[in-house]
């Protein structure tokens, strides 16, 4: 403590002390922090269970001091379904990248949403396979260069980037869908509010809650963290707009 000063912000206690090994400026890190702030503020550390993906955030269990289960690549929604059905009083989330949630795990994702499984998806869409060295993902933008699309994504051959938030908001049993980012302090505050809304709706058993994060991957995009923020503004947000796609009726909440 500093004499004559009041502490107004500190690292959430539910983040472990382990040094986070994601690259500098990576939003995986920011989202871990915001999520653990929400868990702290809601006082639900002992009642929260997370499911980790395969991808850079395979390490999430080292950093988030809540119960966590690792899933096979793409299967986090199936594992979260099992956990939530067995332990319905827990706050359950899956934390998944776009290669995990929208490529190898598309079937699990869509069917869990269609069933309205009462857990929260936290979907980190950075438009690339970060962990394996920057290959094209289903979410890679048209013309975006990656190691497996060196001339840019050709939508004639590959199709358009998948808009998961838009897709899952079509399911009747999905209660809440929002796309957020953490490229500015204001957007980070909104992202935190969205996480809180999702967990609160889950607590009220309203159905599936789905937070997509328009995220970055400075290393895979071969940019500095600051350049990655500009890419988000210029290229990502026009195609992946930040907005609420679906929310519960006022009377349910």
């Amino acid at each position: 403590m500093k004499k004559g000063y009041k502490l107004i912000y500190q690292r959430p206690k539910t983040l472990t002390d382990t040094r986070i090994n994601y690259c500098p400026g990576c939003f995986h890190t920011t989202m871990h922090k915001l999520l653990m702030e929400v868990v702290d503020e809601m006082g639900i550390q002992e009642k929260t269970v997370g499911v980790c993906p395969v991808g850079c955030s395979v390490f999430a269990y080292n950093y988030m001091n809540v119960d966590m289960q690792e899933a096979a690549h793409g299967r986090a929604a199936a594992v979260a379904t099992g956990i939530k059905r067995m332990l319905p009083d827990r706050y359950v989330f899956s934390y998944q990248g776009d290669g995990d949630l929208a490529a190898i795990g598309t079937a699990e994702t869509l069917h869990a949403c269609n069933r309205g499984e009462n857990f929260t998806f936290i979907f980190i869409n950075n438009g690339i396979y970060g962990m394996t060295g920057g290959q094209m993902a289903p979410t890679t933008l048209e013309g975006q260069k990656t190691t497996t699309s060196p001339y840019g994504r050709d939508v004639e051959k590959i199709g358009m980037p998948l808009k998961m938030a838009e897709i899952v908001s079509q399911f009747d049993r999905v209660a809440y869908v929002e796309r957020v980012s953490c490229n500015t302090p204001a957007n980070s505050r909104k992202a935190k509010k969205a996480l809180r809304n999702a967990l609160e709706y889950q607590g009220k058993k309203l159905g599936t809650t789905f937070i997509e994060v328009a995220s970055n991957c400075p290393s895979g995009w071969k940019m500095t963290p600051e350049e990655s923020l500009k890419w988000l503004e210029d290229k990502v947000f026009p195609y992946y707009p930040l907005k609420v796609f679906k929310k519960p009726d006022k009377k349910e909440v």
Partner: protein
Amino acid sequence: MPAKGTVDIDIERCKGCNLCVPSCPTDCLALNTSDTNSYGLHYAYLDKEEDCIACMNCAVICPDAAITVYRKEDQSKQRRTHG
């Protein structure tokens, strides 16, 4: 203007991503490019303490939760409580 707040930056947690520096509305942060932490990374520091308004922008955007923010307690109140 006297400072309204201050920040502590844990330089071992800082990765020098430089996201906090441009998010400070009063430009009081800077990146130290002549020194590194034990991981070999440059780190951010509070360059102009007198300008911090305790808005928390830097702490909110910092991915690594390396920043702690303090608000200066009201001087008049302080005198009363301790007086």
